[in-house]
């Protein structure tokens, strides 16, 4: 795909984030969509392309009254929205549609109108993982961590520092769920969820949603907001079974999606002003820094523990507070994208001064899928 041919011209989250007991999941999709449409100065009838995950495109399009000529229902977990951005950019470039709306919403906490997630007993996961006591992401996602730690000499304190640094970012964000400062000791003394991870190393569980609107770069200049260009994209999948990853020392999906996006954008790691790495759990930023090639895996833990990703430091990472402290409705990728767009627009609560390139890296399932988007505010 050619870089900077498509731009984000509308971006918004749901009016409220956190605990939203007065709206169904479907209504949260609509709330985010209407906010994004208002942000872009558009009408619903201007939308001719639509993408969403978990909920079907027909469900959300019907509810909103959208009549699309292009849809994408790719649903590979929390990074689905990164894949939607990539697919939408390709569709716009191929003239399949002009203006794409991407929505996410999840009633993750209040569970109103939330679709059930189940593992059939005759699926591969149902036969070869579920019988051994996996029960939800906290029991599955951290399974590679001990091997990763042993291979690279990563310490428990370094993994705790991920949560500490992200709380520093969250403290600057009025919409973050958790803003109180924490220490490494607080993290390691919080209750055990799935050893080696404690409560503060696991993502929040909240309600919310977000929506993006994309159009071609030549049209983008006519919109009220500063366009945020799609500079590079990548995607991949590996396996729905965490036990069947090729290795626990890295993620094959990360190592495919990330470098693809860097190559397409034509950037080096030193060009990155702002970085989002989907942090459902505290080890993901370490995998991301290594798999995306920022540094050797052995250095990732110390890099974060030394404060290199905190406010004011050289590699601002997860600047909204992340899934650990900002919010996590279940599929956090949309919120990572929203923060990258805010940073590129220059309106983030914890704005990185003069940031011109933002890399937004997502995970789906338990390292099952990945999508990476490189944004820029310059062409």
């Amino acid at each position: 795909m050619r870089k900077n041919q498509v731009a984000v011209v509308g971006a918004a989250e749901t009016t409220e984030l956190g605990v939203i007991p007065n709206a169904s999941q479907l209504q949260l999709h609509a709330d985010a969509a209407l906010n994004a449409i208002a942000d872009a100065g558009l009408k619903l009838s201007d939308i001719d392309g639509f993408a969403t995950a978990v909920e079907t495109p027909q469900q959300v399009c019907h509810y909103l009254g959208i009549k699309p000529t292009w849809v994408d229902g790719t649903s590979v977990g929390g990074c689905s929205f990164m894949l939607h951005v990539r697919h939408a950019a390709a569709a716009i470039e191929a003239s399949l549609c002009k203006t794409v709306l991407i929505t996410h919403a999840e009633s993750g906490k209040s569970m109103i109108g939330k679709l059930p997630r189940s593992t059939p007993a005759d699926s591969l996961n149902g036969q070869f993982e579920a019988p051994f006591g996996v029960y939800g992401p906290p029991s599955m996602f951290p399974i590679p961590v001990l091997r990763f730690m042993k291979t690279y000499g990563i310490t428990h304190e370094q993994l705790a520092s991920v949560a500490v640094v992200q709380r520093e970012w969250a403290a600057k964000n009025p919409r973050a769920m958790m803003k109180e400062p924490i220490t490494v000791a607080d993290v390691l003394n919080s209750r055990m969820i799935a050893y080696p991870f404690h409560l503060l190393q696991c993502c929040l569980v909240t309600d919310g949603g977000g929506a993006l609107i994309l159009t071609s770069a030549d049209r983008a200049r006519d919109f009220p907001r500063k366009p945020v260009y799609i500079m590079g994209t990548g995607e991949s999948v590996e396996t729905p079974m965490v036990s069947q990853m090729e290795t626990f020392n890295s993620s094959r999906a990360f190592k495919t999606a990330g470098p693809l996006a860097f190559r397409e954008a034509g950037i080096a790691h030193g060009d990155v002003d702002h970085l989002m790495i989907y942090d459902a759990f505290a080890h993901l930023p370490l995998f991301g820094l290594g798999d995306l090639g920022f540094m050797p895996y052995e250095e990732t833990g110390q890099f974060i523990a030394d404060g290199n990703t905190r406010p004011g430091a050289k590699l601002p990472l997860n600047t909204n507070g992340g899934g650990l402290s900002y919010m996590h409705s279940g599929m956090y990728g949309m919120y990572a994208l929203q923060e990258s767009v805010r940073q590129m627009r220059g309106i983030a609560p914890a704005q990185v001064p003069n940031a011109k390139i933002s890399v937004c890296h997502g995970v789906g399932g338990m390292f099952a899928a990945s999508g990476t988007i490189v944004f820029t505010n310059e062409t």
Partner: protein
Amino acid sequence: MVEPQRARPKPTPETQHFWDGTKAGELRLQRCDACAHVYFPPRPFCPSCASRKVSIFKASGKGFLYSYVINHRPAAPGFTPPYAIAVVELDEGPRMMSNIIDCPQTPEALALDMKLEVAFQELDDKITLPVFRPAKG
């Protein structure tokens, strides 16, 4: 109220031989006749070279502890926390999720790379699960 049960696997035509194996006290893997790749989970073709000529064989049942978590909460139905959910690397190459028996479910007792051997845990008259215990000697 009925006690919620541990998740029970339901075999498919492609996996039936594996579950017949555990019931008979064997851990069965598959090997490609064309490229010799050994793989898991079961399927009637080689995921490495796509050959449909594959054979089922009885694995040694030996391996080592590749990684694990000790799950505290929420616990799966039928499990009493804390319990370890392990990934075992078999001597033949493939890895599989399992549980570790005859061993305290603690970080101190569960050392990565410890040698393990398969054991069989009967869930009911249809399903027997492969689990692992520290290898003797």
